[in-house]
């Protein structure tokens, strides 16, 4: 049995499939299904594509409700649970605040600008019925970026399994699903990127089943007046978060692992670690002083 590797770009990040199969044709078939499924999700949920459901909902903000199918409804329901469990920090309506915090702004927002955009943020303002969603304020936006990519990793793992893959790894930009150990029975090794030293690993995680996801404030950031700001924004204050540099969580599914890492990163470092401890699921976190926390993986020593 051989392991075949497929690399592609989707949902704004590098994606990787490693599929162990008796022959290349099965691996190819699975890869075709997985890439087309990824594209289906991307075209359905991307906020950059004008005919995506996300764009249709966003463009109808303040105007009228938009009909949604059960998959969208289920993802919205799940996002609502994330909102509650994060006590309001994980909010799929907070993306609009990126208008204030991006590389091109080069200045801090004014209070009136903050007020203007904060008015358009708030999961609780979203009106959801059985088959419709409505953003009541003109300019409100949904952004499934923090949910769909993680979910797609689970979907691809389930597809690959149903097609007969028993050893494999799905990696969608750091959201990783494992389908059994490597063909020789050894676990897969997953490196956690060092938050400040781009190409090296700060820790290595060994996993044979389930999922692991990593989020880092270091991934995307911008500097204003010599200060560095993370792309993660607190939806209540409208200001970027100064939280953990990186968090990884292992869980049976990528969507749950991903939600937990995202929530941990939106909190202060202390609260983030407390939250991960409370979840009682394996985690690895790096604080702002590069201190390592958690029981997941082996820390690499330089």
């Amino acid at each position: 049995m051989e392991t075949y590797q497929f690399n592609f770009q989707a949902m704004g990040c590098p994606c990787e499939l490693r599929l162990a199969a008796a022959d290349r044709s099965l691996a190819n078939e699975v890869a075709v299904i997985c890439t087309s499924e990824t594209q289906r999700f991307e075209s359905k949920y991307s906020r950059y594509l004008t005919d995506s459901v996300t764009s249709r909902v966003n463009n109808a903000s303040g105007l009228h409700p938009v009909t949604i199918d059960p998959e969208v409804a289920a993802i919205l329901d799940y996002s609502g649970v994330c909102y509650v469990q994060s006590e309001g920090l994980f909010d799929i309506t907070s993306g609009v605040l990126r208008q204030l915090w991006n590389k091109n702004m080069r200045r801090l927002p004014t209070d009136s600008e903050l007020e203007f955009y904060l008015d358009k943020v708030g999961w609780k303002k979203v009106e959801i019925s059985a088959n419709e969603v409505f953003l009541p304020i003109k300019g409100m936006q949904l952004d499934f970026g923090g949910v769909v990519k993680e979910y797609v990793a689970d979907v691809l793992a389930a597809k690959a399994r149903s097609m007969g893959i028993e050893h494999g790894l799905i990696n969608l930009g750091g959201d990783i699903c494992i389908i059994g150990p490597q063909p020789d029975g050894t676990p897969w090794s997953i490196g956690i990127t060092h938050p400040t030293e781009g190409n090296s690993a700060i820790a290595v995680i060994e996993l044979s089943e389930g999922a692991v996801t990593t989020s880092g404030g270091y991934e995307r950031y911008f500097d204003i007046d010599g200060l560095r700001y993370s792309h993660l924004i607190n939806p209540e204050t409208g200001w970027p978060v100064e939280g953990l540099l990186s968090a990884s969580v292992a869980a049976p599914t990528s969507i749950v692992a991903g939600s937990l890492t995202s929530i941990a990163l939106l909190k202060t470092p202390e609260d983030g670690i407390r939250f991960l401890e409370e979840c009682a699921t394996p985690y690895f976190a790096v604080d702002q002083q590069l201190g390592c926390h958690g029981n997941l993986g082996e820390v690499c020593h330089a």
Partner: protein
Amino acid sequence: MAKPNPFLALSTAAMALPAFAAPQPVETIVAIKATTYQEEDVPQRDVLAGSDERYKIDIAQFRLLTPVGEKWSLGVDVAYETMSGASPWGTIMGADGEASLIMSGATIRDKRTEVSLTATHHGESRSISVDLASSDEDDYEARAVSISGEWEMNNKLSTLSLGVSYSSDDIEPTDALRFGRVQREEKISRSLSAGWAQVLNKNSVVHVGLDVTDHDGYLSDPYKLRDVRPDEKLEWALSLKYRRYFDNQNAALHLDYRYYNDDWGINSHTFHTGWHQNFGDNVRVVPNVRYYSQNEADFYRGTDDFGLATTINQSSDFRLSGYGAYTLGVKLIYSALQWDVSLSIDRYISDKSYGHDASDQSHPALLSFNMTSFGLNFRF
């Protein structure tokens, strides 16, 4: 109340996402069920001869459903029934001008064993099942085979189902020589079914189904004194089902309607509605009402006519008469982590006046019955 662990809260919520709704069973289910079915006695004044005690049936059922490998599942169903009581042999015009019943005399005792095996192959978005079934009684043997498939489409919003089945039944009436009954007869049935289920939104589903069945062979009741039916019957039925879940009430409404028609002249309507109310995570209560109505068959007679040639169709079977029936029932289900316990009680009453065709003749054998079931499911 302690705040739930966020990991558990999110894991539970994630299970509602479509990717985690596993089509093939991932656990083994063992179920047992005991049912008592008791028909009420016929009023003594309606019986000319024979016993007024009607059927009592005790049913024990066993079911095993288990995954075999990653793509197959196997189901085994076994049912064992013991029946006792008397059944109507015929009707005759009584002294008061109303139809009177001739019932079987001494209590009939019989037992029936039914076994069925189902193998299902679960594919990416379709499943195919093959089912073999056999039923044995002292005087009746039935063998059936069926093949059915389900295909999910439109992003799992629609499901098409198609099925074919074939059954061959042999009947060898007891005491055939003594009562001049047929000694051995057979019947063949073939049916086709098609269905379409459509998810309308996250809380409601509608299902439309069409069934056509053709029976060929000996279709009369050999125990009746005079029962001559056509040796062919073509029947078809259209069914509509609607399921609606209500988030706020934590409950679901089931609304079903079925229209049936056959070339013996019977049309029937069945309405069935149930309210599935959950109380917390463990308890479900399902009150339900069923209404059924049919008109009589073309060759139905209120009283047997022994003056007619035996080649002319006639039957006084109450099941071919025009009538209506109500069933009121309630089911209670308690679910623990691996166990479900259920209890259901149903009361059935029927009468000519409940039916939709007022011109039909009444039948004294129209029955009432009570049915109680107790079931246990175990998953592992």
